[in-house]
Structure formats: structure tokens, C-alpha cells
């Protein structure tokens, strides 16, 4: 009998396998139970969910029986990259995840609890609509062969400077001259764009748009190519001159007697036999002027002087090389030459060319930190009542210097009040060459205005000039938004 007794243990083996199977089931349930449950059981749940913007405008509503978005097509399209859709085609997973949550699944109660939930966003759909209005103009495709169109703003004049130099290259005279900014726009194609606006004092992300976009309620029209990509979070672009802010920050922190420094520029500058080209000759210029002139020669020299290790250190410190996360939605990482490249390439990388790529969201964090005395309040799209994460992003002195320079940029080079009426603008333009003759138009900065503490990043893909296209559009958007919100206050 002892033999039989011992052998009866074979039954325990089967029992053990059954227990293993149950453990597998429980683990899978914890992992995938939500997906399983919502696939078929959703229509049996009485739960509902709503996604609202900061003013209570309904952006998405869903129940067991229907999915609805805003009634107005513009609002639907302008906010598509905020809400995403139920099918998670934008990949941000935001709405899909919230939807699952709102439909009432959790591991303990399954979908048995009927929930009626609401999620409020920091996003202002009015702002998104305004951005959509102004940026979608750039989207209009032109006929074959047609290449000239009008930009949606009035032609106006801005001051520019003519410089006279003596035989030694010292500036002997500087005279103002009015230059007409025409509204003609030489763009042969359809322009994609991305723009974000964030309150740098509170971290609230007020607007986010990426074009082309999709109408989630329209299942008939095929979306434009690339419409599902959120260019604010899920793409990175050559930054061009806006990257000079990074080089400038590194220079401020690593150069003694910066105010005595002069940078000399005469069209071209050779580093190890490779030319760095500038638009004009700027001759002898201070650090501030070099920034206002957006002088390639000066910033290439700064990058080479700092050395690659220092540049990489700052690029990394400011988060350009890492994936960031907006309320849990991951963004893409940017790039910067981190392997040894040699001085000429390093020079180019210091002015935002070379292999530099920047995700607009990373740039937004950077300008938010500059605007907020070097302290970054991590932008938040969801209004969950919690304070945003705050971190010391850069030294307060660096931020202050950059603020002054960005303000100076506007008054010295961008036309000041003429271009940005009513806005206390601090900014930097970028016209990033992408190698095929086209340029990305960038305009990044903030309003130095405690009532309207908005930081922004505007990027028009292959849009042409930074100031002409991105700068002017941003100006019009912010003017209209401020006028609109003040009108609403009254």
C-alpha cells in the first residue's frame, strides 16, 4: 500500500497544474481584464464619461451606446490632438484610457459599478479654435505651378539697421531704416504645423494643436496624410536658430566677463576650412546683438569655444535628449551630436543645424522655464486639482539674461510693437534649413505680462521664414485670444 500511497501524489501534480492555470488567469486578468471586459461588456454598462475643456465646453462624451464629440466641426478638428479618439488612432491613448476608466472598469468591481464621470482639461478650446483658424490658412494647397500667395496679415514696416564700419571693422555708424514686410509668401505647398501655449506661472497647458487634423465625427472623409501624428509631442524637427537659446544659456553660464565679449562676423567664418555662413555681415557685435542678429558665425564660435562635452551637458540638462511625458503621454526624444564630430559640425550644431532635432514639447518646457525665472512647472493638460511638478530647470540669472535678450530680439529685429501690437513679446525666431532648400519656420517665446503669462512654441513645417510666417501668425493668434478672453471677462 505504501507504493500506492506514494503514487497517489501524481494527482497533486494535476492539482498543481490547475493552480498554476488559475494563477495565469489571475495575472492575465490583472493585465488585460480591462481590455477584455470593455470589448463586449461595454454596451451593457450604464456608465458615461465626459471630457470638458477649462470653460466647460464638451469635447467628448461617451456612454455604452454612443460616442460623441463637440457639436461644432471646428472645435472637433481643432481639439482632435487633445482628445484623440476612441480607436486610439493618434496613439496618445489619452481618451481611450480615460474612456476605459470612465466606463467603470476596475479590477475589483469589473464593470459592475455604474459611473458618471467627468474630466476637466486645462485646455481652452477657444484658443485651439483660434489657432486652428490662423494655422489652417497655411494648409491650403495650391494649384500646380502656383507658388505665390498672400499671408493672412497686413503688409507693414519694421525697423532694420544698416551698419557702417571703418577700415578695422569697428562699427562707426548705425542707422535705422524702415523695411516693408510684405505679405507675399513663396510657398509651393501645403504646410503642416504645430503650436502649444502654456501658462508658465501655473503650468496649465492652454492650447495644443497639430495640423493637418481629423474630424473624429466624420468617418467618410479620408484624413490627410500624417493627420494622426501629433506634431507637438510625437515628432521632432530641425530647430534652426531657436536652438541658439540653448547655446546662449550655456555661454552665459560658462563665460567670464560676457559683457566685454565681442563676436566678429563678415558673411563667412571658416572652422578648420569649413565655412559657417551668415545672412549678413554683422561685424563686431556684443553677445546680445549677436542673438538679435541671430548671427550664425557668433553662435558657431560660442559652441566651439564651449566644446562638445559642455554643449551635450546642457542639451541633456534641458531635456532635449530625453522622452518627456505630458500627463503620461510620452513624447519623442530629440537628438544632438553626442559622439565626437569635430569643430565644424559642432559649430553647425550650436546654431540648430547639423543632426539637431527638437520635439516642440521639449522646446515649450525650455521657454516656460526661461519665462518663470528658471523654474519649470511641468505642463499639465488635465485639471486634476494637483499642483504641477516644479523643478529648478536653469539658474535664475541665466533665465533673467535670456529674458532680456529675447525682449531685445523683438524690439531690435522683429519690429516690436509694429509686429506684435499690444503684446509684451519676448521671443526667438528660427528658420531651420532641412537640406532640400525648404525651411521650418519656428517662433518660440513668451509674453512678459503677468495678466497673460503665456509661453508658446509655434512651428510651421517647411513654412519658410520664422518671423514672417510663424512669428506673424503667433502674434495674430495671441492678440485674438487675449482680446477674446478680455471680451469674455467683461
Amino acid at each position, binding site marked *: *500500500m505504501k507504493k500506492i500511497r506514494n503514487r*497517489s501524489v501524481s494527482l*497533486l501534480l*494535476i*492539482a498543481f497544474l490547475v493552480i498554476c492555470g488559475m494563477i495565469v488567469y489571475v495575472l492575465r486578468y490583472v493585465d488585460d481584464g480591462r481590455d477584455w471586459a470593455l470589448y463586449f461588456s461595454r454596451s451593457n454598462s450604464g456608465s458615461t464619461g465626459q471630457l470638458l475643456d477649462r470653460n466647460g465646453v464638451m469635447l467628448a462624451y461617451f456612454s455604452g451606446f454612443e460616442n460623441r464629440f463637440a457639436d461644432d466641426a471646428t472645435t472637433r478638428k481643432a481639439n482632435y490632438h487633445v482628445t484623440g479618439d476612441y480607436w486610439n488612432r493618434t496613439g496618445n491613448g489619452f481618451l481611450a484610457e480615460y474612456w476605459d476608466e470612465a466606463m467603470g472598469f476596475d479590477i475589483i468591481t469589473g464593470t459592475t459599478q455604474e459611473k458618471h464621470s467627468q474630466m476637466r482639461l486645462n485646455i481652452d478650446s477657444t484658443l485651439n479654435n483660434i489657432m486652428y483658424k490662423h494655422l489652417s490658412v497655411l494648409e491650403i494647397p495650391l494649384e500646380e505651378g502656383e507658388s505665390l500667395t498672400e499671408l493672412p496679415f497686413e503688409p507693414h514696416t519694421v525697423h532694420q539697421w544698416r551698419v557702417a564700419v571703418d577700415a578695422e571693422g569697428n562699427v562707426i555708424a548705425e542707422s535705422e531704416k524702415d523695411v516693408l514686410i510684405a505679405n507675399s509668401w513663396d510657398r509651393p505647398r501645403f504646410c503642416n504645423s504645430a503650436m502649444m501655449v502654456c501658462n508658465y506661472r501655473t503650468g496649465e497647458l492652454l492650447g495644443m494643436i497639430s495640423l493637418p487634423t481629423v474630424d473624429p465625427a466624420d468617418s467618410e472623409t479620408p484624413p490627410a496624410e500624417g493627420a494622426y501624428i501629433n506634431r507637438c509631442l510625437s515628432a521632432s524637427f530641425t530647430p534652426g536658430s531657436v536652438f541658439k537659446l540653448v547655446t546662449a544659456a550655456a555661454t552665459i553660464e560658462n563665460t567670464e566677463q560676457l559683457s566685454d565679449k565681442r563676436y566678429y562676423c563678415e558673411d563667412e567664418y571658416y572652422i578648420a576650412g569649413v565655412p559657417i555662413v551668415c545672412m549678413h555681415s554683422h561685424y563686431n557685435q556684443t553677445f546680445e546683438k549677436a542673438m538679435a542678429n541671430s548671427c550664425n558665425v557668433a553662435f558657431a564660435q560660442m559652441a566651439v569655444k564651449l566644446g562638445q562635452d559642455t554643449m551635450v551637458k546642457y542639451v541633456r540638462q534641458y531635456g532635449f535628449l530625453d522622452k518627456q511625458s505630458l500627463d503620461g503621454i510620452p513624447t519623442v526624444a530629440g537628438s544632438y551630436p553626442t559622439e565626437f564630430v569635430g569643430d565644424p559640425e559642432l559649430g553647425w550644431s550650436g546654431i540648430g543645424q547639423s543632426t539637431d532635432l527638437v520635439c516642440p514639447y521639449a522646446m515649450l518646457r525650455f521657454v516656460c522655464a526661461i519665462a518663470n525665472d528658471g523654474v519649470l512647472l511641468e505642463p499639465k493638460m488635465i485639471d486634476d486639482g494637483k499642483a504641477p511638478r516644479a523643478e529648478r530647470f536653469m539658474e535664475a540669472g541665466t533665465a533673467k539674461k535670456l529674458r532680456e535678450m529675447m525682449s531685445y530680439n523683438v524690439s531690435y529685429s522683429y519690429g516690436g510693437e509694429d509686429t506684435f501690437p499690444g503684446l509684451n513679446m519676448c521671443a526667438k525666431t528660427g528658420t531651420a534649413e532641412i537640406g532640400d532648400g525648404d525651411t521650418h519656420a519656428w517662433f518660440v517665446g513668451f509674453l512678459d505680462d503677468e495678466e497673460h503669462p503665456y509661453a508658446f512654441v509655434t512651428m510651421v513645417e517647411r513654412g519658410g521664414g520664422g518671423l514672417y510666417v510663424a512669428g506673424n501668425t503667433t502674434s495674430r493668434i495671441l492678440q485674438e485670444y487675449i482680446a477674446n478672453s478680455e471680451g469674455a471677462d467683461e
Partner: protein
Amino acid sequence: MLIFYAMTTSKYAVIIMSVLIIVRCIRSMLSERYEAEIWSYVYRGDEAIPVYHWENLIGRSLSADIRIDNRSMSRVHAVLVRSDKGEWRIFDIFSKGGVWVNGMKVGPLGTRIHSGDSINLAGNFLRFLDINRYHRSLLEAQRTQAGLAVEPSITLVYLTVFELFLMVEHMCTAESEFVKPICLAFLGLICLEWLCYHLMRFINRSGFEVETLAFYLTALGMSVAATSTPEDMFKQLLLTIVGVALFLLNGWWFRSLKRTSSLRVPMGILAILLLGVNVLTSEAVFGARNWLEFGGYSFQPSEFVKVFYIFAGASTLDRLYRTNELFSFIGFSAICVVAMALIGDFGTALIFFVSFLVISFMRSGSIATVLLAVSGAGLASVLAVTIKPYIAQRFAIWGHVWEDIYDKGYQQTRAMSAAASGGLFGKGAGQGWLKDIFAANTDMVFALVSEDLGMIVGMCMVLAVLALAFFAVRSAQHARSAYYAIAACTAMSMLLVQLSLNVFGSLDILPFTGVTFPFVSRGGSSLLSCWMLMAFVKSADNRKNASFAVKTAEYAGIYEDELDEFDEEDIE
């Protein structure tokens, strides 16, 4: 509003009661003291070796019950066997040195031995001493009575409360025309279990855990019926009554080992006949041809063959060593498995195959035999898949059910969704949507219960069967005869495999084969066979005064069946 409160209260009460019932039964079955019975002594010199079973192996082997470590002994030398009537025999099982009783050589048919007889095993002398009635009642008094640590009647009260709350839940959700039959069926079930309990008390039996767990699962089955086929409540109750009757009948039959083992060959023949009729006459119903029409009732012969298979497959220890029946048993098993495959019931074929592995391992102890069988089966299945590619198709979807939710993964995906949507506490009996999917109340019953009553109850359902399996293993340690030990373990292995295929098949952890969950799935044949299989578990339960299927020593030390004989002896 009242209905809402009644519903919510019942929902949580059902869960709490479920857990209590399972915990109490597990405590009672697995942690109560369980002393071995002593049937006689063998003296070697002055050393007394107690004899714990009715069938004992004597030899040099470490796993011998009476071990004599002497080179002259064979590893397995002799078998010492007690009959129902208390008569002892010794068999020489092809030993090298031979066996003598009182100087007489023991032949192949064995020799009857009496108290005081001297046994010579290849020069090793043993003296056999039977225990007298007085000694037996002393020994019996020292053993722990079953059901003392965990009072079975309280567990049964919990079970009754569980059933009442379940009934209330159904009263809240069922259509009004079905409320009455559902209530009557539940009340009938409650009456039946208390009747059964009092019957056991009446015949002085106090182990009721196996019945409690079986009734618990049956009540869940009743709930599944009330959810999916409320028009059949009376049929369900009737089937339960018949099932319990068959359980009692089977258990009573098992009281005599001689009677039980005499049925081996007839049952084997009956199994083959039944399967033969099934293969030849039946028609395909929903894919598998495992249904048989008989006098207006349709039933699944394969369910009954499970019981016959164990009857035929279990064996007493002396037969195991004296005759070489393993090959005829393998042949018999092969016929059963092939018949199942011909019928197209691959799930049941697999159940039989695993049961065959368990029986043949318990009989032979040979892993080589098991491996041989497994590789043979593997080869056969490769062959089957090559000849009939549609079988392969059924398995191809395994692990990918979400890729084909409208066809091959239809049932599994819905089962998983429903099971997950119930969470831990469920939606409330009858509140789910899975019941409208085909075969929800049979093949996907775990999901149906999880959706309605919650995952905790679903787990309790699995735990109940697991607890029975652990109990079968525990009982097998003290079983009187190898026959009971093998039968109990095989019965439970059948139920465990059946459970695995049902639960894990519907959850896409195993291929979906469409077998029933023991007791819970709808299906009369399945319910009856499960109750009959429980009798095997009862027959191995040797705790003091625990099981009605085991004869017990009265206070005078007489076994119940010996009473008549005792009276006669007394008169003499």
C-alpha cells in the same frame, strides 16, 4: 428600492458564504487529525509491526508496508490481505525464497492465516497476531472522530444560507413566471441536503464535507440553470435527486470490497458496449456525436463510461502483483480513448487519457509506462491532425482568440469579456449578458458564474474541486484497499482535468474543447456521473465514523457487516 437592497445584500452574502463554506470544508478535510487504522500486528522477534491496511506488501523494498531488510528477502516478497469478513490470507508473489505458513508452503492461491500463525519468509520468521474485539474497540476509541473540529451541521447551515440568498437574487431578476419554479427547486435542494445529512447522522456518520462541497457545486449549477434555462428547474432538481440517489447507491456498494471488485469485468464490458452503441448509432449534435437517444431522453454515454472506467481500472494490491493485467487495461483504455476520438469528443478523450495515465502510474509506478503512453498519444494526435486538418484548425486559434472574434474565437472572447466584467463580486445572479451566448451554461460556465456571481465565487468553485482532490490524496494514505485509493484518485483526476479543460479552454489558456464543469455545467448525464464519482472519494475516507461508504467498527469492535456472523459465533 427594496429589490435593490435585497439584491445587493444577497450578492455579498453569497460571496461571504461561499468563502466560509470552502474554508470550513478545507479545514475539516485537510487539517483534522486523521489517524491510521490498525488491523493486526506482525511480530518479528519482540518487535511488533502494526498492519495499517487491508493489503500489505512484505519485502525488502523501502516502499514495502512490512519491511524486512534481509538479503534473503525479495524486494517484493509477499502480500498480506484482509477480506471484508476479517479473514487474512498471505500470497507469495513470485519471491525467490518462498513463503511458508506453519511450515506449509504457500501456493499461488495464497493461504489463510490465523492469529498466532508463524510465517516463514525465506528464513525470516514472523508471527501474525490478529487483534481481538476488545483491542479493536480500544484502538478505535483512540482515533479522532471526523467532524469534531469543524462541525458539519454548521457548514451545512452556511450552505443553506448561501442557497437562500442565491434564491433571493434569482427571485429579484427572474421573469415572474419562473420565480416559483426557481424557488421550489432551491428549496427542494435544501431539503435534499438536510435529508442526506440526517440520514448520515442516523447511521452514525459524521464526515459530510464531500457532500457539502458537491451540494455547493450543485447549488451553483442550479443557479446556472435558473439563469439560462429557468423553464427546466424541475428537471434540474429531479436530476439532482437521482444523482444523490446514485451516489448513495454507489457508496453503499463500495462498502464491500469483494462486491466492488467483482464488478470490474462487467463494468469494463458495459463501458465498451455503451461506447460501441454510441459510435455506431449516434448522430452529430453541435459537432460531437456524443449524444444517445433512449426512450425520449437523450444522454451522453461518455459521462457514464467515466464511472465504469474507474470501476474497471482500479485494482486491489494482490491482483496487481499476482496477475499481469496492465496490458489488458491498456487495451481497454485505448478502446475508450479511440471511441471518444471517433465520436469527436476530444475533450472527453483527453480526460480519459489523463485518467489512464493516473491509473496506470498508480498501478505500475512506472514512469516509463507513462512516458510511453504519452509519446504514443502524441504520435497518434500528430497522425489525427494530418488526416483530419479541421482538428488542427481548432487548435490553431488557441492563444489568438482575439484575432478572430467573430468565428473561431467567438465563444472564448465573449467568455473572457464577461468573466472580466463581473469583477470580484459579480453583477448579480441573472444580470449578465453571457447567458445568451451559445453553450454559455456548459462550456463557458466558469465565465457565466464569474460574470454573475463574481470571480471570488468562480475561484471558490475551482477550489471546491481542488479541495476534493487534496482530500482524495490524503485519504489514499490511509485507504484500506488499493482499489479505493486508486479509484478515489482517478475520479478526482478526471474531475480536475475536466475542470481545467472547461475553465482554461474558455479563457484561452488551453485549447477550447467544450467539456463541462463538474456539477455546475448544465447537463443531466454530467451531473449524475459527477455524483457517482463522489462515491469513490467517499469510499476512501477512512476517518473514524466519517463515511457511509466505509464499514466502521461498532463499540464492541465488530464491523458492521460482520454483525450477523458475530451473532452466530456467539451462539456457538
